[in-house]
């Protein structure tokens, strides 16, 4: 019998500010689409980030991934860049991309796909406790 395949999910948090605004539209159009989220000075959220990896359980260690490997990858590739930052201004991902929950989930996926070497299965981004975005890479 081959090793069982499991999904392991780990929850992280970061706090960041953003505004939803695109230079491709006029100020009025931005306000019409994004409402109060277009407020020029931005606003912030406590984001919840759940990262799921999928793979075979290692026979020797019993791990699908060592937790410190996962923690290090998320910290180095996402949290260090995003936490306590103004996403529109401080993070290159959003120079020409509106930092909506959808886009943040997809950018986090892009940042983690290589470091987690084929094991990344899902990114769940909680913007507030009411708004959740999930991306599985397709």
């Amino acid at each position, binding site marked *: 019998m081959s090793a069982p395949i499991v999904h392991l999910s780990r929850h992280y948090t970061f706090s960041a500010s953003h505004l939803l605004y695109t230079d491709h539209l006029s100020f009025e159009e931005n306000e019409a689409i994004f409402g109060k989220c277009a407020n020029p000075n931005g606003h912030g959220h406590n984001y919840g980030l759940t990262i799921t990896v999928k793979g075979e359980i290692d*026979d020797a260690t019993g791990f699908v991934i060592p937790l410190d490997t996962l923690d290090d990858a998320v910290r180095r590739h996402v949290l260090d860049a995003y936490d306590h930052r103004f996403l529109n201004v401080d993070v290159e991902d959003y120079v020409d991309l509106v930092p909506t929950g959808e886009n943040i989930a997809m950018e986090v996926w892009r940042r983690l796909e290589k470091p987690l070497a084929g094991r990344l299965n899902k990114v769940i981004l909680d913007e507030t406790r009411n708004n959740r975005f999930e991306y599985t890479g397709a």
Partner: protein
Amino acid sequence: MGNVLISRRFDFSSSHRYYRNEWSEEENTRAFGLCALPNGHGHNYTLEVAIVGVPDPDTGMVINLVDLEGAVDSVLVGFDHKHLNLDTPYFTDRIPTTENLATVLWELIHESLHGTRLNRLRLYETDDLYVEYFGEQA
């Protein structure tokens, strides 16, 4: 058509230790960190058991929750307030990681339900770490 997923949550508390006898102290510490400390440690585990099916036209139920509870409780009694390495027979040749524990619980609950097909087990070791197992087909 008409499939509904029903999920029930259970709590149990156990202790464990991650350690391979054939490895040196250093190797164990490198792989398992604090989890290799000699006297073990414990967690409050939360287990979510999910079953999918078409509700019975007479009862309106996918499964009688009393039956589900009874089947799962009869398994968990072997784990609750136990030392997983020392008080259960399942971890003599594998580490009681959350990954391995999820697969062990799957086999036992599947048996206890007399073949009722499980859809998913989700096992929380802590609030911010969980493993999902979907059986061998995943």
